[in-house]
């Protein structure tokens, strides 16, 4: 059978729809998720199939609907809570961090919170400083939360299904710039396990660890590197927690050099954590310091020219990797 292609957005919707058909406890809640089909049009058609009891529009109150979701999960439902922009998790933090992430532990295992927060990351959409951040590091920091970062349509469907079936709270960050990107997505049921990194491209001279939006960027950079005789390995952790530390360390040991690329702010970011994992685990195999590249330490500018400068690009990743290889 020929490989079927879906967009990233369609893959997300298919995952949610299939899970809702499979399990009546799964429901969707958030702003503009029903008739509007979500501002990014990722959820169009779901309310028609499942009705307003399972696709629930809420007032503009992120803490409110996040709390409803957490409560529903505690009492046996499996909610998918839609937080339109990743920037808005600042408003849902208490429900995520102090309630969802803690309930299982503090109840001695009596309470489970099988909730999925689906939200977005990614700049370069000209959405300005309050709608362009990639804040996945914030929740990756908290014990009790799992964090998934699908880097393409295949991952968008597989990771969403795993998230919905997981008994722990999961925050899944979709790259808002990738919703229209097409790629092969198998029909029917499949899941992608959490905590298993995928080598997107094998190489021997330098390891590029890339997350989410930075995976295609790094694959592009790897092509440029190939032209100058550098063989780059691109590896996608797919989840920042659980983190497949061993795969990252093994790759860095193989190539002796590592560059970590992530669209979140560079300081105190995902790149710092991963670079530290590699530096500790592969220290005696490294021939260069671990480099990391994230978003600049500035509010994301509205000016397109400036905005594009703040996040890693194929060219800047290429140059950094090339410099690491001293070629």
């Amino acid at each position, binding site marked *: 059978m020929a490989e079927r292609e879906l967009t990233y957005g369609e893959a997300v919707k298919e995952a949610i729809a299939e899970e809702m058909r499979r399990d009546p406890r799964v429901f969707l809640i958030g702003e503009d998720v029903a008739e509007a089909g979500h501002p990014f049009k990722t959820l169009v058609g779901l309310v028609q199939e499942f009705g307003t009891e399972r696709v629930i529009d809420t007032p503009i109150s992120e803490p409110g609907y996040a709390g409803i979701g957490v409560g529903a999960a505690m009492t046996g439902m499996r909610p998918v809570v839609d937080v339109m922009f990743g920037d808005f998790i600042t408003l849902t933090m208490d429900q995520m961090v102090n309630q969802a992430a803690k309930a299982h532990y503090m109840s001695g295992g009596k309470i489970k919170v099988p909730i999925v927060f689906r939200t977005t990351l990614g700049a370069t959409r000209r959405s300005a400083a309050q709608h362009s951040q990639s804040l996945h590091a914030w929740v990756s920091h908290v014990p009790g939360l799992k964090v998934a970062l699908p880097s393409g349509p295949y991952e968008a469907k597989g990771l969403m299904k795993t998230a919905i079936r997981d008994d722990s709270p999961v925050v899944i960050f979709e790259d808002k710039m990738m919703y229209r990107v097409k790629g092969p997505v198998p029909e029917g049921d499949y899941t992608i396990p959490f905590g298993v990194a995928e080598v997107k491209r094998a190489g021997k001279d330098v390891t590029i660890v890339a997350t989410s939006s930075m995976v295609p960027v790094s694959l592009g950079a790897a092509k440029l590197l190939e032209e100058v005789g550098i063989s780059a390995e691109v590896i996608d952790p797919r989840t920042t927690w659980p983190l497949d530390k061993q795969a990252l360390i093994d790759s860095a040991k193989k190539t*002796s050099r590592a560059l970590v690329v992530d669209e979140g702010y560079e300081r105190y970011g995902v790149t710092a954590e991963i670079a530290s994992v590699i530096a500790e685990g592969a*220290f*005696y*195999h*490294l*021939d*260069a310091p671990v480099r990391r590249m994230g978003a600049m330490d500035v509010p994301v500018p509205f000016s397109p020219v400036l905005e594009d400068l703040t996040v890693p690009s194929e060219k800047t990743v290429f*140059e950094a990797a090339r410099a690491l290889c*001293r070629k």
Partner: protein
Amino acid sequence: MATNVIMPALELAQETGKLLRWIKAPGDAVRKGEPIAEIETDKVTMELEAPASGILSAVTAREGDVIPVGHTIAQIASAAEAPTRTPAGKAPGGEVSSGGAADARPKASPLARKIAEEHGVDLTRVKTASGKIEKADVLAYVESQRVVATPANGGAGHLVAASPKARRLAAERGIDLRALKGSGPGGAVLVMDLPLVGVPAGTVAAPVTQPTPVTQPASRKGEGGGVGTVWRIMAERMTASWTSAPHFYLVREVNVTRLVAWLATARKQTGAHVTYTDLLVKLVAATLVQHPRVNVSWKDGALERHPDVNVGLAVALEDGLVVPVLHRADTLGLAELVTRREDLVARAQAGKLRPADIQGGVFTISNLGMYGVDAFSAIVNPPQAAILAVGRVTDRVVPLDGQPAVQPTMVLTLSCDHRALDGARGAQFLGALADLIEEPLALLL
């Protein structure tokens, strides 16, 4: 500890640099920031500054050598480490009486004096070339004394700079890292610097236990086809332009009767040696201001508009072509423009251009009129959108009021990058420029 002097990379794409001249000789005392050599990089000559204070030593690069960026070309040893030219027994500052009489107080800035006091430094022992002591001199002295004060037991306890992997492999193979010369940052030993064990032969050059400079013999013009950096860069850039920018050409003959008159007046009024090129720079800049759509580059699939009107001039050198830039030429008066052009051309010919002199150009003028060329088609200077090729000013037969007349004319050829400009826009620009050349008084409007 010695500090390595490396061939610096001044531009992203630069791979090698040529050592033109050592300003300092081995054994010379140098101060941090002081020029020690002249190096030639992409089209410019730069002074290489000492990365530390001390004695220049272990000089491996010879004048004329072409050296890969990042390679060590010399070391600055601390005063305690290297033999100096100072005759034995004569301590630095020895000519100053050690009596420390008040009238023998060395000249020192107040700040230098304060720092010396804090560190307990006797200023009479700090010697400088100028005789006046500044903050940096005191700090350099303190630093050199600090090194002397450490036990001279062969640097035991001080880790040799090496990557973790190189360190592990060296330990596994029983290799002494101190015997190796590192090619990494600050002379750090990398895996590639280790003597090879179990690596297929021929994959790496000879072992580097001795400081052998990684150089090629200096090329000489006209001998064996070797070319200088300027020529090589010209070849690379022109190939890049010719193979990536789709060119089209617009040709126009303009009547320069008024331009000739203006040149004579301008020379008389300014007293400067004004050239046609100067007038053309002024007119091109004015036309670019009127037609900002030409002041663009094609970059990464989009048009990049340039805020400033920076006009480049193609200047032929003995060994290639450079394009120094008259920045914001639209704001310059004619006299100032001439001064700047003369300065740029003189420094280009002397190989003394700075990176800023050749950067930021948005449009280039290439004039071969002085060689008697009637017209020619130039290659666009990337990433610019267009270049104006200027032919000679000469008398030609032109129609005047229905009759043949003989008047001075000039043929202009505008080469355009079709990704950034189309024929109509290019033609409008050239038309406006031709109108200005034929009636420069329109500048005043």
